[in-house]
């Protein structure tokens, strides 16, 4: 009962205007600003450059040569690819490596070899795909010719047909900028609540109310539990409000599984509170606040708070895996856009696991101290 009493008292912090500004106004504004200012990074389309393929055919296989000619004509017609025969003295591989061509095809008695330009991954992928389709069809016609020699020179593409089969599919929904930043800002603001959590016990000491609490028939554990419960509850309420505002005012998409979404967010709140408390007990005074701020900033920077992790490479990508913000963002994005709950379970386990560890550190430190 005392735990509940202390928790309810803690929730009255909403009366502080600064708290309302920090927990409500700031995230809503950030979502709006980042979501509109960075919308170009999320337009969902991409441009394919010119596809130029260099080739060399020594003519050792006449059937293959005939099929190849048909393939080139069809590819040029349907896909806009350009095929150029290698000239005397040219090194096909070097030309590709120098970014002059998307790929180099060599056709001889051994078969077809392809060297692609890895810098143009999209275009390279298209050429590879089409060559694979061509190779499959040639093998098929070769096998068919063993039964009926007529098939040896048939391209096995009916009139009007194409090596490129266009099919319309319902592609996976991709987040727009407001969608992405609704998630990223919400998780980032949750992490910032570690700062207020760091001052949770310290504020009682500064107000001298720690003395009065400890002089009353309430244990340290009850005080601790009450303050955490109250802060957890009020942060959860704020998060729900921010999610609802982003959903109904900004039309941000939060998926079809709100329960799992809120579970991920609530476990992140628990993690943030635990982080603040744990560090405030290990480090005293202003050092705790500074360290918490550094952790939050790094987690936000590497974890996708300002730019999607998917658009980063190298060390940035590597560092993201260690950011608590990343594992929450990733979990939510997969949950909302792929319907996959495995990353969400992973994130929740990490949040809860680290929370238990940090809270244990805080409780052990508190028990050793005189006073709170």
């Amino acid at each position: 009962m005392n735990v509940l009493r202390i928790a309810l008292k803690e929730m009255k912090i909403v009366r502080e205007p600064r708290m309302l500004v920090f927990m409500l106004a700031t995230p809503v504004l950030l979502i709006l600003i980042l979501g509109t200012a960075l919308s170009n990074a999320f337009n969902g389309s991409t441009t394919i450059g010119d596809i130029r393929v260099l080739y060399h055919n020594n003519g050792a296989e006449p059937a293959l040569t005939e099929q190849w000619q048909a393939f080139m004509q069809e590819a040029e017609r349907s896909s806009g690819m350009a095929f150029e025969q290698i000239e005397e003295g040219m090194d096909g591989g070097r030309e590709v490596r120098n970014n002059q061509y998307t790929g180099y095809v060599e056709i001889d008695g051994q078969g077809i070899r392809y060297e692609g330009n890895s810098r143009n991954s999209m275009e390279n992928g298209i050429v590879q795909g089409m060559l694979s389709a061509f190779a499959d069809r040639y093998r098929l016609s070769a096998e068919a010719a063993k039964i009926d020699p007529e098939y040896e020179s048939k391209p096995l593409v009916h009139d009007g047909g194409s090596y490129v089969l266009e099919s319309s599919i319902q592609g996976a929904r991709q987040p727009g900028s407001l969608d992405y930043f609704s998630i990223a800002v919400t998780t980032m603001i949750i992490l910032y609540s570690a700062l207020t959590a760091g001052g949770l016990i310290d504020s009682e000491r500064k107000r001298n109310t720690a003395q009065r609490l400890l002089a009353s028939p309430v244990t340290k554990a009850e005080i601790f539990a009450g303050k955490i419960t109250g802060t957890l509850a009020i942060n959860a309420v704020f998060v729900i409000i921010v999610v609802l505002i982003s959903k109904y005012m900004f039309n941000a998409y939060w998926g079809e599984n709100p329960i799992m979404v809120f579970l991920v967010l609530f476990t992140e709140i628990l993690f943030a509170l635990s982080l603040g408390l744990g560090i405030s007990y290990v480090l005293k005074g202003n050092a705790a606040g500074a360290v918490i701020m550094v952790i939050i900033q790094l987690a936000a920077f590497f974890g996708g708070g300002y730019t999607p992790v998917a658009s980063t490479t190298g060390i940035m990508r590597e560092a993201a895996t260690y950011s608590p913000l990343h594992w929450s963002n990733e979990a939510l994005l997969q949950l909302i856009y792929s319907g996959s709950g495995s990353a969400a379970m992973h994130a929740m386990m990490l949040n809860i696991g680290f929370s238990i560890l940090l809270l244990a550190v805080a409780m052990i430190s508190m028990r050793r101290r005189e006073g709170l």
Partner: protein
Amino acid sequence: MNVLEIKGLTKKFGDFIAVDQLSLNIREGEIFGFLGANGAGKSTTINIISSLMPMTKGEVHVLGKNLTKFRKFAKQQIGMVPQEVAIYEDLTAYENVHFFAGLYGLRGSELRSRTEEALTFVGLSDKHKMYPKSFSGGMKRRLNIACAIAHRPKLIIMDEPTVGIDPQSRNYILNSVRKLNEMGSTILYTSHYMEEVEELCTRIAIIDHGKIIAEGTKAQLKAIITDQKDIGIEVQTAAHLEANKLREVAGVKSVEVKENIVHISSDAGVNNLNKIIQQFMAQGIEIRSVQASEPNLETVFLTLTGRSLRD
């Protein structure tokens, strides 16, 4: 019955001994004064009794039960008015009292009525919906008291409750202490203001360097120095007074000058007033008035410790 019994209480901070083998008993219905200079060990003793810090050695019994073994029971019986104001600025006056009283097990209508009763007692019932940030220092101190008394504790510990407040609020608090005592509470009152302790307390302990150096009623303490008389001589100006020459007068024990009043402690059995006045005349110092007074607790403290209470 003893509401509080302390035996051999010791508290060490490293090598520093803050409370040294302190023993005392407080009977039910007393206003027990704990008098000592800053740093004497009053607050440390109070904090141990209130379970705010552990003792190094010793025993404390509250209403006959060992503090260490029956801590929750002991806490239920004690109302703590800390030296620093301990209230929540973001809760109203009512909510502050209601919250703290609720921690002592009060519920429902009883909690509400006790809360209102406490606020009425300290004169804040008309301000119960206001936030402490709009209160004066004196009002905050009164709210500080209300938070400690709502659950009707058997023992109220007041740690320097009148520090830094206006005289009107101070008088209000002193009157409140008397009323609480009349209503049946036992009060442990610590202060370094001798006048308050002398005015309020039925029994007094003087503490210095963590030890009780004297204990008893005002009369009993003053009897320690019955062989002494205090003379207060108001002069025009004491700037040129040669106090050492006054000390040479037979029977004079100590001379202390405060502004333009010269306080002289002298043997009660020696009739030396004439010689003292002659000394003033010889030094050309004009006397305005002469007053012989009973020794007070300040004098007792000075005699016992060699220092004044406010040193």
